[in-house]
């Protein structure tokens, strides 16, 4: 057992995989000598050297193009795009090339490739450095999408993503970086496509992702005080999506809620709520509710950003109110 921060878990997880597979390489801006702007890659250059840990120019298209070309010719790659907002400057390589090339070539190529990126708000960086864009990635056929909420999941899902033969977009949440937890010794390898019930409950189901998970848990604890038993699911991976765990819970509780940090329209919650609405329709006791960041760019002032992103308090109030309505 060692205590590890979410931040340190990133380098820890990458190092585990780089020791296992000597062909695995990583590239990105300021990731080598500087150890990353979020200090998530500290120590990797020292251990693995400049051939395997590469600093790049500010050329996101060239970064992901290099990653794609290397992956399709047998070299597994981890590429860092510093902030997830910047996926927009290389979106063509991600959405049109990496995601589609295997299908277009009828399986001639595959992409053992992980795109790591710092996602989400809470840092007061404003609209261009705070977005939650997990729905951008979920929307594109051919991409797997992972967003861990704990240090151990960072390590285990990083291993699963690196070992997965398909392209994975791996979202590391800026506001979870400082959080610490105990990590078991030895190799940690998790599995993509498995959600986790982090809190059992019988009255309502709350599905959350990344930073929204601890907030959902906090809300659930307050709800318990009101006699409302909330089950909290950490979705963990959006693609593949563990609909079984989600549907089982929705059927059990009859009331389904999602907590999303991405802006409201066409978020992952809309997808999950639509699936639940279609496949668990006869088991629902009331409308499924999406708790999301409003459909606005993220403001930078602390007071505004805190109002925009779902809080434990907003989750708590929304659940209480909708149950009242349901009852009425």
């Amino acid at each position, binding site marked *: 057992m060692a205590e590890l921060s979410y931040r340190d878990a990133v380098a820890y997880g990458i190092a585990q995989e780089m020791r296992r597979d000597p*062909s695995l*390489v990583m590239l990105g801006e300021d990731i080598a000598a500087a150890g990353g702007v979020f200090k998530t890659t500290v120590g990797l250059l020292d251990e693995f050297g400049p*051939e395997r840990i590469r600093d*790049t*120019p500010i*050329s*996101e*298209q*060239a970064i*992901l*193009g*290099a*990653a*794609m*070309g*290397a*992956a*399709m*010719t*047998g*070299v597994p790659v981890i590429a860092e795009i510093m902030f997830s907002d910047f996926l927009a400057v290389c979106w*063509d*390589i991600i959405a*049109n*090339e990496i995601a589609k*090339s*295997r*299908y*277009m*070539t*009828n*399986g*001639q*190529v*595959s992409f053992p490739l992980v795109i790591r990126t710092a996602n989400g708000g809470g840092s007061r960086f404003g609209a261009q450095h705070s977005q939650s864009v997990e729905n951008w990635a979920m929307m594109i*056929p*051919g991409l797997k999408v992972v967003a861990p909420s704990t240090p151990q999941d960072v390590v285990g899902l990083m291993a699963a993503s690196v070992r997965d*033969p*398909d392209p994975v977009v791996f979202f590391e949440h800026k506001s979870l970086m400082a959080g610490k937890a105990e990590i078991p010794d030895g190799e940690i390898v998790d599995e993509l*496509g498995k959600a986790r019930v982090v809190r059992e409950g019988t009255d309502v189901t709350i599905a959350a992702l990344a930073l929204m998970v601890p907030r959902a848990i906090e809300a659930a604890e307050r709800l318990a005080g009101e006699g409302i038993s909330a089950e909290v699911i950490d979705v963990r991976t959006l*693609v*593949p*999506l*563990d*609909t*079984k765990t989600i549907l089982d819970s929705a059927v059990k509780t009859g009331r389904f809620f999602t907590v999303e940090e991405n802006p409201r329209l066409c978020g992952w919650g809309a997808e999950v709520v639509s*699936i639940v609405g279609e496949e668990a329709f006869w088991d629902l006791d009331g409308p499924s509710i999406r708790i999301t960041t409003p459909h606005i760019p993220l403001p930078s002032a602390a007071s505004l950003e805190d109002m925009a992103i779902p809080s434990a308090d907003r989750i708590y109030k929304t659940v209480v109110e909708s149950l009242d309505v349901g009852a009425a």
Partner: protein
Amino acid sequence: MPMPTSRALGPDFDYALREPRLPKPVDRSLSGADIEIDTRLGMYRKLQELRQFEKRAYDLFMQNLVKGTSHLSLGMEAVATGVAAAMKPDDYTFATYRGHAHSLARGMEMGPAMAELLGRENGILGGKGGSMHLTDVSKGMMGSYAIIGAHLCIANGAAWSAQMRGTDQVAVAFFGDGTTNIGAFHEALNMAVIWKLPVVFVCENNLYMEYTPIDLITAVKNPAADRASAYGLDSIIVDGNDPDHVYLEARKAVAKARAGEGPSMIEAVTYRSGGHSRADPGKYRPADEVEAWADRDPIPMYHDRMLSLGTPEDRLTAIEREVAGMVDAATEFAKAGSEPGESSLMTEVWADGGSAWRN
């Protein structure tokens, strides 16, 4: 609404009224170049394969047997031919939507290629990709990319991989003049140079970005060569209608890359004899320009050069006949293929062969 006819309004309104951009005369001295005769015979055969295959493809569009779009290299065959002749079997090739010529030049079989154009299950991509995405990894043909720019960056990746794996493979990326104005071009060139990647960038300058003359929308005269210095590279311009000239420069660039001395960029000036794509009659080009370039067609020129070098006429005729047979066979193969069915629609999104996104 008042609609004056373009012709009345002049060259700003109708590019066909602009000054023609004429080809340079053939450099006769190239017949003396140090190139094996077998290499030259091989190039003559390739020229024939590319030309006859695409003429047939064109006929099949006209019969509406090829659906979708298609971008032919008719008139431009010398570039793919000359570069391919300088490459080794395990080198990597990255082409654009205009990639039939490059795929065949690298050894893709005509049958599966033609079948792909027809959207048949025996196509090289099972009908999933189509004309713009021809790929044959078994031949180092790593793909045809239909969105401008990206594949220059991807070619870097293959070159980087060869560098890391310690093989002596070289990656070659073909692209057009218009592609030099998109951001990915700039990012790819810079990264290739700073990492000394074994990659060769080959710009096929056919003077037009689709329907727009390249000089109207480019800040420099030679869209690729005049940018080389921005990456510390030499400016290299070749006659894109002369396989020998293309081959000689490609041979140098490939050798340099293989020796670990980094990337090169070659600008091959050429011209497409037909339209940009299936839909395009190519009316935006001055008639005398089209004519002048037609007279510079690489194939008759190279035919004459082979004769002048002592190759007997019947040897060349035999090649032409063999290729004609290959094209007929490929056409039959393609037509015999059935249309892909339900069973293949949902396959090969993932490495496990499937497309499941949920449990």
